[in-house]
Each structure stands twice: as C-alpha cells, then as structure tokens.
C-alpha cells in the first residue's frame, strides 16, 4: 500500500498515481481537499510508529504503507479553508491533521519521498551550495553582501553576473546590468546573492534512488522557467545522457541530502565543465516528463513499492 499526499489533480501526483495503477499497487490518497472528513492518529513505541488514517468509514493501518509520496500544499490556502477565520474549528482540525501526518512522515520506516526535514536544505541556497561542493560538483562563484563596492568588483571580475534570492522563496534569476549599478545602494538594508553567470547548456537531472533521468534544456533565457515571457520562445526540452561520473555525483548528492527523489539543476560549459546550481527536493517533474517521455513517474512509483527497474 502506498500513501499519496496532496491534491490528486496536481500533475506530478497524478502521474505517480497513474504509474502506481499501472503497477497494480494499492494506494490511498491523503487528498487535501477532503481532509475535513479525515482523521490521522498514530503512536510511537520503542521508536516504531503505528496508527490509522480514517476516511469515509474506511480505516487504513499506517504499518501497511510501505511508501509515501508527498506533494502537500500549504493547507491554509486550500479553497475549503482560505476564508476561515484564524483559530476556527475547521482550520484547527486541518492544522492538527497535517501536523500528525508530517510527524508520521518524519519517523515512519516507510520509503518517504521525501521526509519534511530532508526538504529543508534548499531553504538556504548558499547553504545547499556548500553541501553540493562536498559532493564534488562545481558551484558558481557566489557573493552575498550588502556592500555595493564589493558587487561592482565582483561584476568587473566576472563580466557577467546574476542575482537571485538566498532563501527558498521562488525568485526569477536576473542578469545584473550596468543600469543596476545605480540602485545598488538598496542592498545595504538586506544582503543580496550574486553569482557568476555560467555560459552553457542547462541540464535538469532527476534522480530517483539510483536511477538518473537527464533533460537538456535549450533556451536563450537567463531563467528558462520563464523563457516564453523573457525571450518570446518556450524552452525546448530533450532527453539526454549525462557523463557517467556526473551521473554518479548526482546520485551521491541526492543520497547525501537524504532525498530519494531530487531535481538537480546543472549547466555544462562549452569546455565540458559541470556546474551545479541547486537541488530541488520536491521536483515538479511533470513538465520534463511530458516534454521528453522520460518515465520519471514510473521510477518514483517503483521506488515507492520497492520494485527494481526492468
């Protein structure tokens, strides 16, 4: 039995659900849209967690779940709850239910993709970059500062630099342009992250256990996620092969971050150097799978069920 947590119509969850059906694997969906009709309780004895989840007169034992795939959204923004007043009964129930689920995900022996604590490393991109360094992958030169002079020096040194958020808050990566020098004084109030611009091709690597799926992304935009808005042309995605040593480093990196499933952003320079930008601990892989046909959802489903690739 596999536990799927999130909203079933959301693409990645829907694709993993489809793959589990193909494998004829039993599953239960912790559907966040139905959490008000659900209960989730467990106990921990001698380090082992067990309990039940109940939904519409059905009871499922937590010890029957051998795997869990997690794509939870912030429950405060669920349509059923977004208009609820702080402290309302429904909000409290939802909070308590999600808290119990997250607690269980943290301590269960089931294969969890991925545990809440393991998903925290990209809350700080430069922290994560230091972990990436240790895995043997190169990271771009990075400067975080509130000193305009240092930024100007960094810009002169690298000729082309970008800036982006330090935290996990999603931000659009932007190139630093000469005009930006005039507003550099604003960084005195809060340090900003600058990075050398790396020229080359973007590769998105999805690691699922020991399996690697690499996608080449052709785009002229600085941040290919916003290619259409930035350059008028959507990014082109093609399945590709990664050099064996780089593939192994990606597997090792994901393992070192306790992530059975990770989306790793690489760039390969014209000289063949491999740079790693960041690791997404909960990758929205459906965008890549739908463009390339790479069987990523099936790999996740196999991992969850403990089955090996054919």
């Amino acid at each position, binding site marked *: 039995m596999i536990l799927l947590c999130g909203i079933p119509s959301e693409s990645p969850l829907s694709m993993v659900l489809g793959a589990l059906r193909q494998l004829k694997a039993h599953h239960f969906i912790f559907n966040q849209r139905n959490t008000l009709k659900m209960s989730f*309780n467990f106990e921990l004895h001698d380090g082992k967690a067990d309990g039940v989840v109940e939904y519409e007169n059905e009871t499922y034992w937590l010890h029957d779940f051998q795997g869990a795939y997690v794509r939870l959204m912030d429950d405060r923004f669920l349509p059923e709850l977004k208009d609820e007043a702080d402290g309302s009964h429904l909000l409290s129930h939802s909070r308590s239910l999600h808290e119990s689920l997250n607690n269980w995900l943290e301590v269960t022996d089931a294969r969890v993709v991925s545990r809440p604590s393991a998903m925290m490393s990209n809350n700080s991109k430069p922290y994560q970059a230091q972990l990436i360094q240790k895995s043997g992958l190169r990271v771009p030169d990075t400067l*975080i500062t*509130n000193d305009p002079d240092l930024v100007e020096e960094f810009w002169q040194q690298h000729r082309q630099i970008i800036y982006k958020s330090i935290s996990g808050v999603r931000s659009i990566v932007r190139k630093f342009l000469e005009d930006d020098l005039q507003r550099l004084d604003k960084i005195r109030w809060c340090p900003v992250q600058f990075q050398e611009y790396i020229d080359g091709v973007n590769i998105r690597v999805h690691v699922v256990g020991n399996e690697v799926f690499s996608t080449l992304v052709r785009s002229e935009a600085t941040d290919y996620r916003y290619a259409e808005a930035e350059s008028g042309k959507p990014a082109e995605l093609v399945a590709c092969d990664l050099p064996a040593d780089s593939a192994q480093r990606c597997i090792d990196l994901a393992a070192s971050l306790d992530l059975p499933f990770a989306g790793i952003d690489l760039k390969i320079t014209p000289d063949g150097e491999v740079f790693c930008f960041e690791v997404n601990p909960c990758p929205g892989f459906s965008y890549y799978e739908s463009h390339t046909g790479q069987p990523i959802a099936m790999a996740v489903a196999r991992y969850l069920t403990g089955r090996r690739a054919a």
Partner: protein
Amino acid sequence: MWLVLCHCSDLAAIWAYEGLKALGMGPLELVSAESLAFSLKWEHRIRTNSASFRITLADGREIASEKVFGALNRLQFVPLPHWHRASLQDQSYVSQEMMAFYTSWLFSMPGRVLNPATPAGLSGAMRRPLEWMRLASQAGLPTAGYQADHSPLSASATMKSVIVVGGITPADAPYPEACGKLAEISKTPLLGISFSMLSDGTLRFCEADTMPDLRLGGPCLLDSLKACLERGLQ
C-alpha cells in the same frame, strides 16, 4: 579568535563566555545577535572549494572566517529591528532571506562549532519531540510511548539533566554511551538530555535540547567546552 555567538538574554552563554575567558581561552569574542543585526558590512563568498565570511560590526570589530578557530554558537533567530516599520510582506521576505543567509555563513564557520547551523535551526536542528523520542530510542535510551496528540512530556517531571559536549558525557550521566550516541546521530555535538524517573527508580528519556542551560554543567562543563573547541584545532 574564538567566538561566542548568542542573544543578549542568553545568560548561560554569557556565563560560558566568562568561564572560558577565565580558563585562558583567547582571543575570545562575545558577539550578540543584536549587534550582528546592525553590522555595517557583510561579505559571504562561496567558491568551488571554499566558503568564507567577513563581517564588520557597528562597534568596529571585524570577524573574518580565516581568523576564527571555532565557536560556541547559540543563535536562534535573526533580529531585524530596523525592519519593524516595513510592510508585513517585506518583513516576511527579509526574515526568510536573513535566516537563509545566517544558515549559510554560520555553516561556513571553520573549526569546531557547538552547534553547527542547519536549515532546521541556526544552532542545531530543532526537532519535534517525537523525532527526539525516535532518535533516543535508536541511540539505545529507554523512552516512553508517544501519542501524536497527547505528548507525555508535559506530564513528566524532569529528574536528571545531562549535557553532552563533543561526545563526552559527565561521569555521573545515566546511559553515557547512549547519550553520546544520541548527540552523534542527531549531529548535535552540544546536546542537553533530560530524563524522568519512573516509580521503580529507573530513568527514562524525556527530552533533548540543542540550547541547554550550560550553567547546570558547572566548571566541568567549561573544561569540556574548552577541550572540545580546542580539539578542532588539531
């Protein structure tokens, strides 16, 4: 230099600073979270093989990673006094950015750090009580059962506290090997562990704390802190 990083209200850290100074540890700098908040200049760099930081405080002191031997790190959050009048949205963004920034520069601290920064806490991972319970069980400590919505912790009176420093437990600690193991598997070299006593007199794991009251360890703890920090130089 050695660093003691703490909040102004952290009397235990200030006690440790005074104690370590009296033991001849130097140069030793006490740097408060509140003074860091008003730093004039921040510089944190990450290169392919290295990470470094340089901070110029408002009082003129400069803290550069290449001059740091190690640290007692008790920072828990980033005070942002100069952002109080900003919009809530801006405050929220800055708060996340600064936490992410502190996590990184603290993680790049050279030498022995008690405790290293993690994304789950600036001075060691803040875990849920049942995560500690599970880790304690894995480490070999006797634990109580835990019900998700009825924590047993509130009902238990703490009877014994132990502070593990760099794998060393006090001579009178119960289950010394398991205590050391808990600090090791939780990657928390400075860890407070509390036990409650059952009616038959046996001690059972109650809770763990990444910010123990260091004063409870007395002079022996200061010796352990000094020895542990200095081991990082070897």
